[in-house]
């Protein structure tokens, strides 16, 4: 449809305001990380880079970062296997209960995190004898499966099976077909799913609170513990700013790998 000039200007204005709504808080985080004040005061009375140095040297921040990365990598690897298997099962077969299964996969991200959190906490402490780093990883895998699955099944539906048939007709074994035909076509979808799964795991706070063993501190847990401690406000500000900057990386990678997708939002 041809929008009138007024409609276009109005829409652009709304988009501009929405953009400000989205970006002003992130900008405030970045500016606050250089604030010379020890509390969340606006406007900052002065600027310093002192807290950046202190945050980078902070032992608690460093070890929390490594815990988060390790948990994220293991959970992503497990979710990749489970999610991709599920995508092939649901994308290539028609069977009784298929709709129910597709509903079950989205359940862990559709239900509130606190429900998943206390449900797993209850079972882990009652039957597994307590919480460890592995109960935390199990918790994360549960909701990471769906993002891997979503990306994989979208690709499976779109690529069809004619190329694989051609490969089989030409005499390739199943393994060979998978390695030379299926996997290369799936690769970018799998990478996108992996980035999303890692991002979800890295960021998760609620399920983490309820499934992490005592003393296991991921980065979100560290921030949460220090959020209300006035003395640590400047360090929390810097860690927050770092996370805002880091969050640009997955976007960049995802845009690169999904550039062959016709829809730009391939990572959703």
């Amino acid at each position, binding site marked *: 449809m041809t929008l009138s000039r007024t409609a276009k200007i109005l829409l652009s204005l*709304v988009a501009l305001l929405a953009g400000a709504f989205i970006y002003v808080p992130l900008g405030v985080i970045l500016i606050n990380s250089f604030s010379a004040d020890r509390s969340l005061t606006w406007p900052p009375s002065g600027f310093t880079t002192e807290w950046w140095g202190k945050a980078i040297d902070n032992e608690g921040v460093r070890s929390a970062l490594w815990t988060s990365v390790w948990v994220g990598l293991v959970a992503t690897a497990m979710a990749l296997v489970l999610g991709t298997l599920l995508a092939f*099962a649901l994308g290539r077969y028609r069977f009784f209960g298929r709709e129910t299964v597709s509903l079950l996969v989205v359940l862990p991200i559709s239900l509130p*995190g*606190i429900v998943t959190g206390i449900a797993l906490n209850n079972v882990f402490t009652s039957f597994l004898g307590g919480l460890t780093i592995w109960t935390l990883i199990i918790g994360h895998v549960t909701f990471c499966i769906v993002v891997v699955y979503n990306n994989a099944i979208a690709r499976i539906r779109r690529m069809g099976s004619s190329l694989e048939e051609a490969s089989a007709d030409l005499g390739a074994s199943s393994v060979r077909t998978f390695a030379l035909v299926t996997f290369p076509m799936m690769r970018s979808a799998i990478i996108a799913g992996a980035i999303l799964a890692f991002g979800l795991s890295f960021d998760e706070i609620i399920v983490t609170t309820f499934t992490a063993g005592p003393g296991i501190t991921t980065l979100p847990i560290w921030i949460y513990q220090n959020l209300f401690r006035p003395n640590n406000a400047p360090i929390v500000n810097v860690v927050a700013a770092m996370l805002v900057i880091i969050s640009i990386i997955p976007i960049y990678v995802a845009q690169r790998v999904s550039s062959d997708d016709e829809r730009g939002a391939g990572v959703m």
Partner: protein
Amino acid sequence: MTTTMTPAPRGGFGYRHPRMRLAGLLTPPMLWLVVIYLGSLAALFLTAFWSINDFTGQLVRTFTLDNFIEVFTNSAYYVVILRTLGIALLVTLTCLVIGLPLAFFMARVATPRWRPLLVALVLTPLWASYLVKVYAWRAMLQPEDGVIAWFLSPLGLGGPGYGFLGIVITLSYLWMPYMILPIYAGLTRMPESILDASADLGAQNGRTFRSVVMPMVFPSIVAGSIFTFSLSLGDYITAQIVGGKVTMLGNVVQTTYVTNLPFAAAVATIPVIIVLLYLFAVRRSGALDNL
């Protein structure tokens, strides 16, 4: 081959023993999702019908509806339920009011060259840490020295401070991209020819929007609302950080689950039932394929 299975597509997979292949593919993820996840949920809901011995603090494993009766008759709790529902609805509405025009701008006003950049700009905050974003709003909303209070003070106005409004704003901010992206995807999938046809038949922009665009993006809006609604229902951290004294359902669960797990389980059942009813209601709209 059984009647439950149409012939599998031929190819690398599922071509000699389709049922075995299917079983092999399905078993590991289903073991995980059914045994670990559904099993835990089932155990939790079973616990909701048990109780705690007031003196010993031990679980009493006899069936009782007391927890649910308490939740729905004690005004302290049903007010929280209604407040949480209100917050979730307001958040969904806010996301829609801001997200729909923004998505429309991205899909239909911006030139195709700008679209990937705009999508990236909307996606970037989605990747920024949840806690960082809530923390940002703590700085924004702070009653005395917050950014909003500072911005409004020349007008003689104060900021909203921490509380109900603060929670609604923060949650809307958090879940906004979940609303924008499905709508944007739905709008870009819509063929230009349909809009032209509508215009050729004499419809004004408003009419085309109501009769053509809205019905087509409706499933996308519903898909987005699943996130904005259910994520808001279960949140408790936002209320802790920017809610002041205002509590939500999640806060009740979080504060009671150590001392009284059956009661916490009963409270946790409420958002689950609401979300399941919602998912069930929208299943036919095709929204789930848009997730």
